[in-house]
């Protein structure tokens, strides 16, 4: 799943390690989410949204919704 995590992180001048520390996960987790290799669970997605002061939809792009808007 594509996401804007790298952009949001860069806007705040946070490294992957900084974000990992704030989320209490490993740096590898942040990297895997950023590169789209791993989709976070709903609780972690909510934590990310809270941390960046935005919504989940503003961070993660629902490609299925773009391809099939009626579903």
């Amino acid at each position, binding site marked *: 799943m594509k996401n804007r995590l790298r952009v949001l992180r860069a806007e705040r001048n946070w490294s992957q390690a900084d974000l990992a520390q704030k989320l*209490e*996960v*490993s740096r*590898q*987790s942040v*990297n895997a989410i950023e590169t789209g290799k*791993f989709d*976070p669970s709903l609780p*972690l997605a909510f934590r990310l949204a809270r941390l960046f002061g935005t919504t989940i939809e503003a961070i993660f792009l629902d490609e299925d919704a773009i391809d099939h808007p009626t579903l």
Partner: protein
Amino acid sequence: MRTCNKNISPLHRRSIVPIASMMSICGGLTAVTPRIERGHFSTSTYYGIALIAVLPIIGTMIVIARYLSQETDEYMRHLVTQSILWGFGMVMVIDTFLGYVVQSYLPHTAALTALNLEIFLIASAIALRIQMGRNQ
């Protein structure tokens, strides 16, 4: 359960140390078992030895289950779960292959299934390293 990493967490350490101990116990049993002569002891003694050989495997499963339930990092949990599946897969592949070879050509050889725990742990550790290496 990160391997070869100096920055391991207390949870990783709590899991790696007992697993390494189980592996050593299992390795020791594997080395000793072929020296036990067939028909030398009573049947119940052989069953007892077989049960002792199973204990490190049960212990390892308990440690892994405890690790997975206590790991708060869901990505690490995901990687470890995938690595465990690779470990089990490798055990089945090697067991099946060796089973057929032993049955066909070496019927008097000691049970190679005694190496199952070692194969499982080594294959799981390699799979975990590869997965973590891909995501540096």
